[in-house]
């Protein structure tokens, strides 16, 4: 800019931005926009839209299969079906710490993670670390023909039980 003022051949009376600076900035701006757009497109490209993963919704059979005051581990779904006097809960069996599969220990009346030793009550409430959160409860409902249906994409409040 200071060069323009001292050089009469390039003096620009209307503005102190030279044509070269203007074009340089426009080009850099365009490259920047293209770069950001490219980065955004790449991020989208790496996030799959269609997944061939098992369905998050499954049927857990007739409620009579589960006695009152029992914890049943469904290995294929990684879910505990817990039945108390209050009703049914579907508690996640995937540890909230780092994703290992927890185990139901009836003799200790707690759910324990074999990887790092987190402990939970049968209803998923955290007793001991390193997990920071309790196990989430999934939405559990009855289908029209009277079977239990669990939706692992819907997390509900821990005090909400399904009465049958």
């Amino acid at each position, binding site marked *: 800019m200071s060069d323009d003022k001292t050089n009469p051949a390039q003096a620009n009376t209307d503005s102190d931005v030279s044509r070269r600076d203007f074009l340089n900035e426009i080009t850099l701006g365009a490259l920047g926009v293209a770069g950001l757009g490219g980065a955004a497109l790449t991020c989208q490209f790496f996030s799959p839209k269609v997944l061939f993963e098992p369905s998050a919704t499954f049927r857990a059979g007739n409620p009579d299969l589960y006695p009152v005051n029992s914890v049943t581990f469904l290995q294929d779904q990684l879910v505990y079906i817990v039945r108390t006097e209050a009703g049914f809960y579907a508690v996640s069996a995937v540890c909230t710490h780092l994703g*290992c599969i927890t185990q139901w220990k009836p003799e200790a009346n707690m759910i324990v993670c074999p990887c790092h030793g987190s402990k939970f009550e049968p209803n998923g409430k955290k007793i001991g670390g390193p997990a920071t959160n309790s196990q989430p409860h999934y939405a559990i409902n009855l289908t029209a023909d009277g079977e239990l249906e669990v939706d692992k994409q819907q997390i509900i409040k821990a005090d909400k039980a399904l009465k049958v």
Partner: protein
Amino acid sequence: MGASFHTALESLRTTRVWKSVLRRGPAVTSRTRSLAVSGNLLLHWIPVKVREKSLRVRATYYLGSLSLMLFIILVVTGVLLMFYYHPTAPKAYYDMKDLRFVVSNGVLVRNLHRVAAHLMVLVVFCHMFHVFYRGGYRPPHEFNWVIGVILLFLTLSLSYTGYLLPWDQLAFWAITVGTNIISAAPVIGNKVRFMVLGGHVVGENTLLRFYILHVVILPLLACLFIGVHIWRVQKDGGLTVASKDDDEQN
């Protein structure tokens, strides 16, 4: 015999083909020897002149070179393993088993790759401790120290992506636990984990992603940074000299 071989070599060096390839005559003076090193694509990484002190053999002297040797072993054995390995969920585990029990010398190649990978992590750490405790990160080597830290992270990433490829229980749970650490990052954690895994759980997409990172992207980056690292050793004035020697000069 020796004399005639020497004469033959000398006359070869004056031929037109020799000169067209190397672009100079026989390296007989200090100057022509220096030019022979600096004008050669492969040799120009190597210092033209080296301090005698820095060549003195010590127990820790070869750690950097050992890391490079291990990297070369890993590239060669890794390429060999690629001839039998399919990065797909139905085949990956059985290809690994075939390499151990069916392919001729497969167990040797696989274990060379595996042991060299374990050793490389160990040797790279030793190399860094050595450089750190000898003050090798100080000027004029501070840029090369940063390159070295990048190379450490590349080594660990290569090790971690290779961990999934046998596609057994250990691999599955190691990557499940490891990528759950990513999702502990605030705000973007879950999104980044989803992109790394290519899904919500470790699956077919994850295997392919880790395979491509392991055999293409990370090795290319490692080659690039290793090249810069070795080149900088020369440009920063040869290998690190003990801090004791610097103190004597001060």
